[in-house]
């Protein structure tokens, strides 16, 4: 149990998916202009990550990993090279399905999250989490916690960035640096703050 708690804290702060591994930068830059939309997208990312990470775990360990097909009489089969195309198909299909389910059963939630869901299919944080999950040999429970933790870390990063950019509107920034440039430098300072956590051993 304590392992899972430390994995969660680790993936939220120390190995923050955005500030330490740079995943999900594109939507981080594009959607961090407004706190409400930023937190909407952040919650959608947590939601999708918590489902796709364990789902991809099941598919990888049930079908693709070396020797996973031994139950079907192919003990030497290694389909792990198919993981990219499988994962991206699972993510795209799942995002589509989630969008339809939310639209049907919770119009209120759809109104706030709906527009962000298509964006998520090509957010590299989602695919990256699934690939890290394979590379680091997580167990099934760990894959759920890692998905939720990465999503939470991403939410914290994008909401703080949106808050900072709101304040930046009043700052006098040199012309060439305004916009993308200053956003990157602010993100750098945020990454330095998050590095403070890396001295903590759990």
């Amino acid at each position: 149990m304590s392992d899972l708690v430390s994995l969660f804290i680790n993936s939220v702060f120390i190995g923050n998916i955005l500030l330490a591994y740079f995943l999900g930068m594109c939507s981080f830059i594009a959607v961090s202009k407004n706190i409400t939309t930023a937190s909407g997208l952040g919650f959608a990312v947590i939601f999708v990550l918590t489902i796709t990470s364990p789902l991809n775990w099941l598919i990888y360990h049930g079908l693709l990993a070396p020797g996973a097909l031994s139950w079907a009489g192919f003990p030497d089969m290694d389909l792990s090279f198919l993981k990219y195309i499988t994962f991206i198909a699972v993510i795209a299909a799942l995002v589509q399905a989630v969008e339809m389910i939310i639209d049907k059963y919770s119009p209120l939630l759809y109104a706030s999250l709906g527009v962000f869901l298509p964006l998520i299919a090509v957010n590299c944080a989602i695919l990256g989490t699934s690939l890290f999950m394979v590379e680091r040999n997580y167990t099934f429970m760990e894959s759920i916690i890692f998905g939720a933790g990465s999503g939470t870390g991403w939410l914290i990063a994008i909401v703080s960035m949106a808050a900072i950019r709101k304040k930046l509107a009043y700052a006098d920034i040199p012309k060439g640096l305004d916009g993308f440039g200053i956003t990157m430098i602010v993100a750098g300072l945020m990454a330095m703050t998050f590095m403070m956590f890396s001295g903590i051993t759990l």
Partner: protein
Amino acid sequence: MSETRYKEILFKGIWSENPVAYQVLGICSALAVTVKMSTAIVMSLALTLVTAFSSMIISSMRHRIPSNIRIIVELAVIASLVIVTDEILKAFFYDISKQLSIFVGLIITNCIVLGRAEAFALANDPLSAFVDGIANGLGYSLILISVAFLRELLGAGQFLGFSVIPSAVYNAGYQDMGLMLLAPGAFFIIGLLVWLKNSISGISHSQ
């Protein structure tokens, strides 16, 4: 399709509408693989080839793809090319493919590839789409290699793995800037490079 048109596409992709600095695409990997020159060069090559071929293939199928499922078709084309790239890297550059870790796979969701497919390949003939893919790939490589050059030089005092800063400089009290090898260094360098590029070319910022 005249030669000047290809030149124009090349110039746009590499400089005036540079994918990283102007269109703000594909930043994830631009930050992650730039600790060393060698990984940056391999990543640039892989991305340029994947973008060029995916643009060409998607462009040649553009009349046959139903528009409501085009994203998934594009992703399937890109993912197949990435699998091929990954297998080639594993076979011939095993050490570098280990260092690139998951970032080769993440070419699939690299917005440059999908962005060019959506914005250019669906509306143009295969040959211009191929040139456009090469141009954007080179534009990405330009940023990636400059960032990697600065980070490796300032952070480790090396160029392609060779120490280039003479030991006399270290004896005089110079120290490598460890920050450059860590995540924040990448953000700072990209931010400053964008500032430099905007000041040189006089392009107003993209936002």
